[in-house]
């Protein structure tokens, strides 16, 4: 049953040093506020799992939270490199980062298999590609009916899954709309979970009979963080701050400017700053 906590309490009680942690959200609903809180609480040696490491993992890696990254595409979408991620891989700064690299198809299937309680995902994948030679977690099975060789990857079953969503109701059920990504899968696949939401409502009210809802009993800690996905976005609430994604390229390029930005915008503030940032994007959208 989901417990309504402050974000600080949620991270404190759910995320431990050394955990495998998946903060998911495919461009949409990226749990930036939760990522910042993990940084503020100084978590170390995390295995960070995420299809698109993105700004959120650039920040966590640059601040030294990560020992390993499991991912399928590590860039700043539409902009370019993740400079902190590259600095860790290429130069070992702030310390070396192990990587386990997959394709999107494999990771999406692996989350699906994790949610389904299976030990592996099977896909027609990686044919003629270089990754199987460098990632021992890409194996194969042979179809007993057709003889076809298919790729197999371990299902993803993180210690902790973290997502952001539109809203929860008083009972603690969570509603997700728009680009739903692997949001539902990562919560169902994880041993523990944190869900941040824009708001808590009395009841969801009229909705599609097939709305994407995580029932309260599948959710761990629940925290209300308005704007918690900024500079990503929350469908129905505020837009993506595409300009910030471009600005990040400059901030992150240099170690000093990165550290200064993190101090001013993460270490010295709290999750309450997200509401104002999202408000700005709401106005921009109107």
């Amino acid at each position, binding site marked *: 049953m989901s417990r309504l906590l402050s974000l600080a309490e949620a991270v404190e009680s759910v995320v431990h040093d050394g955990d495998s942690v998946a903060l998911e959200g495919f461009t*949409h609903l990226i749990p930036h506020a939760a990522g910042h809180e993990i940084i503020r609480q100084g978590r170390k040696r995390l295995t960070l799992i995420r299809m698109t490491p993105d700004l959120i993992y650039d920040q966590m890696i640059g601040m030294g939270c990560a020992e390993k990254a499991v991912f399928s595409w590590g860039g700043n979408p*539409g902009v370019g490199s993740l400079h902190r991620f590259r600095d860790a891989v290429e130069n070992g700064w702030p310390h070396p980062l192990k990587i386990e690299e997959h394709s999107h198809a494999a990771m999406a299937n692996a989350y699906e298999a994790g949610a389904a309680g299976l030990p592996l995902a099977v*896909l027609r*994948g990686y*044919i*003629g*590609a270089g990754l199987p030679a460098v990632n021992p977690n890409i194996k194969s099975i042979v179809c007993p009916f057709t003889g*076809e060789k298919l790729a197999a990857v371990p299902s993803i079953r993180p210690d902790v899954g973290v997502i952001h969503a539109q809203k929860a109701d008083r009972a603690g059920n969570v509603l997700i709309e728009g680009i739903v990504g692997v949001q539902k899968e990562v919560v169902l696949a994880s041993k523990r979970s944190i869900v941040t939401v824009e708001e808590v409502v009395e009841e969801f009210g009229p909705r599609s009979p097939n709305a994407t809802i995580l029932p309260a009993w599948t959710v761990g800690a629940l925290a209300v963080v308005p704007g918690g996905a900024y500079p990503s976005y929350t469908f129905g609430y505020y837009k993506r701050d*595409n300009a910030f994604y471009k600005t990040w390229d400059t901030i992150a390029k240099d170690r000093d400017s990165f550290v200064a930005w993190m101090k001013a915008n993460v270490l010295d503030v709290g999750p309450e700053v997200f509401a104002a940032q999202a408000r700005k994007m709401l106005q921009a959208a109107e």
Partner: protein
Amino acid sequence: MADYKPNEMMTVAAARALRNEDVCFVGIGMPSAAANLARLTHAPDIVLIYESGTLGTKPTVLPLSIGDPELCETALTTVSVPEMFRYWLQGGRITVGFLGGAQIDKHANLNTTVVGPYDKPKVRLPGGGGAPEIATSCGEIFIIMAQGKRAFVPKLDFVTSLGHGEGGDHRARLGVKTKGPTRLMTDLAVFEPEPGSNEMIVTSLHPGVTREQIVENTGWPVRFAATVAETPPPTKIELEALRDLQARTARAHGAAA
């Protein structure tokens, strides 16, 4: 005919290759510009799919990321990412996939993973994302890449996604039933696979481009088709549609700052 830049010629050439009846798996950047240009000009019914799960999307501005709000707001519907990769891509429902990369070889294999050794990379690139399965699951593959010797290399540092492998029937020998790269659009020319060898050869030069320019900007001993066409330059309609799209996009992304 208006003045245009080589990048515009490349995007227009890519757009023209798309058909009204195509179902296109679109990547961010030039593929997105080309696919939407096609939709706004000669292929109004083309189905655009982005890997974020948006099916049949019709954005009025180009997305910066693969999952910008516009994509979902204008889509017929949006499915989960596992479903996108299972039912739609692996299910064989996509006729054309667009790819690009940091490096390409003469058989149109692509590298977007690393420059240098994998374990100790000189440059760590973003990685494959959807590409390894896009490359084998889509009916055919169109590639858009600006030409240059650092990108058009004799040997890839890493094979992120399969093109024609070692050439010939290599794809078929790997059990792959799709066509692979059928067209490579650069800022200088159009390449197509030579029947039999499946080596990418120049079949059309963009207006004003010389064979020498192609040779200088290709890292392998580039070959030309028996008959090399000249790419028709962008029409006024194409250029206006492309520039309008890019102006709207710049305003939309800038305005958010």
